[in-house]
């Protein structure tokens, strides 16, 4: 997929674990894991908002387009 999900990068930057993010956002561990693997079909704005809020970052820090590289 041309869109890369950088949740793991942001988690490392914030020194946070997936479990903690799950507790902060209310998104289940399995869903975050799927998102991290880049295997999700789509992402809701509400999910994106919750992750950005918890990690104190912008949507662009989480999603990256790597189409032309």
């Amino acid at each position, binding site marked *: 997929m041309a869109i890369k999900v950088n949740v793991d990068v942001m988690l490392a930057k914030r020194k946070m674990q997936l479990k903690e993010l799950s507790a902060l956002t209310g998104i289940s561990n399995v869903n975050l894991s*799927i998102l991290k693997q880049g295997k999700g079909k789509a992402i809701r704005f509400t999910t994106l908002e919750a992750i950005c809020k918890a990690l104190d970052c912008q949507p662009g820090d989480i999603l990256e387009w790597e189409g032309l590289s």
Partner: protein
Amino acid sequence: MRNLKDVLAVVAIIVFTALMPRLFPADMHNVIFAVFIVLVVIFQMCSFSGRSKLSWKRFYTSSFNILTTKNTLKLDFEFDQKTLFEKAKEVLITNGYKNLIIDESRKLILVKERISFKSWGENIYVTILGKDNGNSELVYESVAFQIYTWGKNEDNGTKFLANMEESFII
């Protein structure tokens, strides 16, 4: 009528009912009826005792068991067995199923739907099978404890698989 088995079952019941007075002497009718009722009662008693047990799956889902109606749906997913198993549990709970009996080692989930005024209830078996390429297959088997159903069980299965697909929109 959805398939040949249903048509044959209905035809067999009609033909047997029509021919019964000719096939058996009149004094035998009550005996045949009683034997039939006893068999149904024994089956339902077995169903009550074994419904919550995963070990009874083979008995209920066997094609030789003519007293249950089976429905099987399969779908491949590009996820590993563990992730898909967790996802299936989550979707079942989100769908409102409460009585989940889980076997982590066999990656098998049994959902027991209770008996109500409308139905004899059903057992739903969700199995996640791992594949060599790292992907997995979800097998949805529903068993209705009646000889004939009106298609609600099939609808439930289709709905569950649709919800599974939709659950990957996170």
